[in-house]
């Protein structure tokens, strides 16, 4: 055999041709990047693209429900909803950003508290101020129905970026069966951390198959719930100025709107401050005393399975747990909910969800119409069938809604919003979440909360500087 195939083409020619081919391929790839990477979003024609956090089947159902209404506004318009799965919001945001990086930016995207400031700070989503002001009269019934704490959590630097349609406050779910077996009565209103600890001890005495308390390592509803109750936070709490344009009109005369500002301003990291150290040490102590097992990181599927199978006495959950536990086979009455116990304060946390309009969208006006549809009372159960989250509208929180799933004390979800603070999700939320996961597991495995939180403080300071 020779080095060639007998054609009058030497190696140099082959290399030249190969090089040219590679260059062309590269050029084509770069062209593709340039064409799609910058702009994103759909053009002025074509379907309105929406990214939905959940299964594609649910996204398709929603699409079918909304499209006829969109056609009423614009006969030529259509809606294309893509479901994106994720273990948690962290995972969802990463996937959305990957899609944007690939040059496929949507017109509308599902954004929870976790991603709101990040997207707003990077001007990925647009403020809704002018739209809201323009349609204030038709939106007044919405604002009358929604807690101002939820609306404020969707503001950033004085501007409103989303109309929230759902939220989840970190309450304490408990197994009524295990409570009964341990001879415990339902937690009283205003129960304290001491009550919680006593209950946990009694639940643990049921045997090694019962975990008195379990939780998940994440920003929402993990040891952070204890941190909030201990009157602390990972970042300094503050408010942006502004927002009067909304409060003075939409919430005029509403005492719950007093002192509201232009959104939560997350300041200097306070991860290694005393309340943080105490809160993390508290959950480490729960583990050491065998009142709590080692928690999973992210998601809540395993925790839900364990709770549903009667192996966990208490855990932190929101309205989403009602549908989740029901779907996992728990019967109404086999679990209930109480407010998070009071420690040094009764401050609790929550996260809210809604839809943001992408800055690159060529159909912002139509997208706004869809946003308004999404907060209509009749849309809620199409978007979130089966109590898989808590409705932002108070009028939707009825005994009838929780009749089939439970819990009995569903009103806790809403009541807990008074005096609550959203999860501390600054524009550098992803870095914060990564550090929180790493440093929490470090503390749990080493037993040294202070050292881990010193590390987190340093991580957050760096993340803040780089953001």
């Amino acid at each position, binding site marked *: 055999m*020779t080095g060639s195939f007998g054609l009058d083409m030497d190696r140099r020619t082959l290399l030249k041709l190969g090089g040219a081919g590679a260059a062309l391929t590269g050029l084509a790839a770069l062209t593709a990047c340039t064409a799609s990477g910058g702009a994103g979003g759909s053009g002025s024609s074509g379907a309105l693209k929406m990214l939905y956090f959940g299964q594609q089947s649910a996204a398709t159902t929603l699409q079918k429900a909304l499209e006829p209404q969109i056609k009423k506004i614009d006969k030529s318009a259509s809606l294309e909803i893509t479901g994106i799965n994720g273990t948690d919001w962290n995972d969802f945001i990463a996937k959305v950003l990957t899609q944007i990086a690939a040059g496929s930016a949507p017109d509308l995207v599902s954004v929870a508290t976790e991603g709101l400031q990040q997207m707003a700070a990077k001007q990925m989503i647009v403020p809704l101020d002018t739209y809201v002001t323009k349609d204030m009269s038709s939106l007044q019934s919405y604002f009358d129905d929604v807690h101002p704490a939820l609306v404020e959590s969707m503001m950033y630097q004085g501007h409103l970026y989303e109309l929230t349609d759902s939220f989840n406050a970190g309450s304490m779910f408990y197994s009524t069966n295990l409570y009964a077996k341990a001879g415990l009565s339902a937690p009283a209103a205003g129960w304290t951390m001491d009550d919680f600890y006593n209950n946990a001890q009694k639940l643990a005495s049921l045997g090694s198959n019962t975990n008195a308390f379990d939780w998940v390592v994440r920003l929402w509803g993990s040891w952070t719930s204890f941190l909030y109750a201990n009157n602390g936070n990972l970042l300094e709490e503050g408010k942006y100025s502004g927002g009067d344009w909304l409060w003075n009109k939409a919430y005029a005369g509403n005492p719950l709107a007093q002192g509201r500002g232009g959104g939560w301003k997350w300041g200097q990291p306070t991860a290694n401050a005393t309340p943080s150290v105490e809160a993390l040490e508290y959950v480490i102590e729960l583990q050491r005393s065998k009142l709590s097992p080692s928690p999973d990181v992210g998601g809540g599927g395993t925790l839900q399975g*364990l709770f549903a199978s009667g192996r966990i006495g208490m855990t932190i959950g929101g309205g989403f747990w009602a549908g989740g536990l029901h779907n996992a086979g728990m019967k109404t009455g086999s679990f209930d909910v109480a407010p998070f116990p009071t420690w040094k304060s009764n401050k609790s946390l929550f996260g809210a969800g809604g839809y943001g309009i992408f800055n690159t969208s060529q159909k912002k006006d139509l997208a706004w119409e869809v946003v308004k549809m999404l907060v209509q009372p009749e849309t809620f159960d199409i978007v979130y069938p089966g109590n898989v989250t808590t409705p932002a509208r108070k009028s939707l929180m009825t005994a009838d809604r929780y009749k089939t799933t439970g819990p009995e004390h569903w009103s806790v979800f809403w009541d807990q919003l008074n005096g609550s603070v959203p999860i501390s999700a600054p524009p550098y939320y992803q870095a914060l979440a990564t550090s929180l996961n790493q440093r929490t597991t470090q503390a749990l*495995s080493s037993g040294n909360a202070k050292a881990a939180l010193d590390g987190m403080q340093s991580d957050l300071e760096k993340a803040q500087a780089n953001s």
Partner: protein
Amino acid sequence: MYTSTETQAVASRVTAQVAVRRPGARRTARREAVFGYLMIGLAVAFVTVFTLIPILVSLGLSFFSWDVITPPQFIGVKNFTRLFSDGQVLSSFGVTVLLAVGIVVLQISLGLLLAVLVNSRKHAWTKAFFRTTFYLPLLASTAAVSIFMGYLFDAKFGLINYYLGELGLPAVPWLVNPVTAQITMVLIVVWQQVGFTFVLFVASLASVPTDVLEAASIDGAGTWRTLFRIKVPLISPTILFATVVAMINAMQLFDQPFIMTKGGPGTATTTATISMYQTGFQNLQFGYASAIAILLLVIILLITGVQFLAARKLVFYQ
């Protein structure tokens, strides 16, 4: 022996003679040549599009600051200077090397041991059975295996701790203690990957000349001496190949730690690729993530180079 120039000259003469003898031969040769280049072209195009261009783009991107949303900004070598002073990222490289060494050592030694044992079986069906059994995990999706293993090794309700409890043994914090998490990770990767090295070694051991083994036997060499003095040297090129491939794979470890521990506890299983993912897709620092990728590439190249250098002394080519 011909030099390449001489070879080409001879080939040209032969081609010319064939062309003189048969008028259609040149066309046939041309057609064959085009076919040959097409075959090579496919591989070249594949490697170019899926390997070379991404590497070059990553290299270019490593000199930029880019958050996907705003246009990239050229920042020179800042990403690299930051990288060499970033304790967390450097620590992830340390974790990667530590896990990779554990994986490669165990994967090669276990693969060899299993191959020797299976090769010593007399019945063909037992050999086929073990070959299939040990290779099967390799066919499973790494993500599925990781999820499954996560449940198996769960400290709270995992099957392994359950049976340890049944035996009166204490529960092991498999994935919640830094050291046990690293050991568990190595075991899981080796469990899934050992089939690859095993199959290579089985084939290689089968090709060891029987006359050499017979001669060793006549000279009184026992089982171990035959293994270490005859078989291992003879299959050393395969061992080198398996080691290089296993090391390259292990240095890119991502799925198992990402799914099972998210890189924890702490940063005990945060590998360089997880660090890269977090930097790029979570912190939106794609330029910095590219710099991490380039450093990982350089380290893999260096390790591979060292392996080949060591092979000059350790590998025996027949």
